[in-house]
């Protein structure tokens, strides 16, 4: 290699390395800060506090037919999962008279939005069809009716398991939301 060609190659190489370093630095600076850091504070919801929660039973709209075993299994699975979170001193059921004395009671409502009855046999034979899903609006409200937080959650069973497993999946998602909110 001639000395002049060598010098040109070295200068080109140093320019390329410098440009790469600049690009990397720029990409690192432009990267958004992960949620939970002080920079993203306005997006993160403020955590709520409550000593007790009451799970209310909500009827589905008239045009939405949900089997009663699915509704009951959803209710009972959510009660189980709420107790497991250990976020509250007491988890009250719908209609419980003793909840009337609790000052900072939060009321949780599961408002059914959609339901698709799948088939366990279809799921296991085809693996791509026959999923069961249930979609509900999760609503946390104060005793005076003020809505504190609301989110739509969907429980599904896609491959293996009975249809009622969708309710267990939904309840776990509700528990995750409770852990995020309280």
């Amino acid at each position, binding site marked *: 290699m001639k000395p002049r060609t060598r010098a040109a190659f070295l200068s080109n190489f140093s320019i390329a390395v410098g440009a790469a370093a600049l690009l990397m630095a720029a990409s690192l600076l432009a990267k958004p800060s992960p949620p939970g850091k002080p920079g993203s504070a306005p997006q993160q919801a403020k955590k709520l506090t409550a000593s007790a929660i009451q799970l209310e039973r909500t009827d589905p709209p008239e045009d939405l037919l949900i089997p*009663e075993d699915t509704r009951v299994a959803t209710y009972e699975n959510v009660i189980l999962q709420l107790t497991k979170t250990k976020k509250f001193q007491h988890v009250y059921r*719908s209609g419980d008279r003793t909840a009337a004395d609790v000052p900072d009671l939060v009321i949780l409502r599961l408002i059914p939005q959609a339901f698709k009855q799948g088939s*366990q046999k279809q799921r296991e034979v085809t693996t791509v069809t026959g999923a069961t899903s249930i979609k509900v609006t999760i609503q946390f409200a104060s005793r005076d009716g003020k809505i504190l937080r609301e989110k739509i959650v969907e429980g599904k069973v896609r491959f293996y398991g009975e249809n*009622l497993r969708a309710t267990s999946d939904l309840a776990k998602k509700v528990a995750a939301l409770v852990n995020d909110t309280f």
Partner: protein
Amino acid sequence: MKTRSAQINPGVSSKQRGIVPRLLQLVGLLVFAVAGVVVATAALASSRQLTTPQASQSTSIPHVKCVIGLENIKPNTKGTLSLLPTGLEFATGKNKVDISTASIEDIFTGQESRQDVSGPAGTLAKAAIPYGGGRIVSLFSHKVEVLTVEYVDSNGGFHGTVFVLSSGKATVLKDQLVAQGAKVTPHVEPQEQKP
């Protein structure tokens, strides 16, 4: 030349003769295994169907699965569901839970199908059958009845319990509970659930 070719050919044919029986043996074993699984599942289903009419006359029904909803009973526990003069009683080896007739707010029954081979072990077994044979096993199912009982505790708190019984037993239990005085509201029965 003719003599040479005659000496080579018998060697090749003896090799082929050795492979063909082995293949046949393997195919035979596979067919036998699949047939065994199919016969076992069919026998299981028919035995379940045979026991149904005998047990429906009794007020004590064994092998009932409590899917969820009873205090101190883990979900999907099997036990004996009995109809007492005071209400329902679900008993496992260790625990016993009563639901009094007066506390019952509503009762629902529904029909469903359950896979003959199910659960984690059944799922693993089905996955282990080669050439998608597990899917054929998944085609075998049996009818069951689901009994949903809604009741209130002493504080007025809502409870719901889901039981899975053999076909025909839930309706009998519901009728007996209604005869005892359990409340039942008129409601629209959803279509029979797909298996």
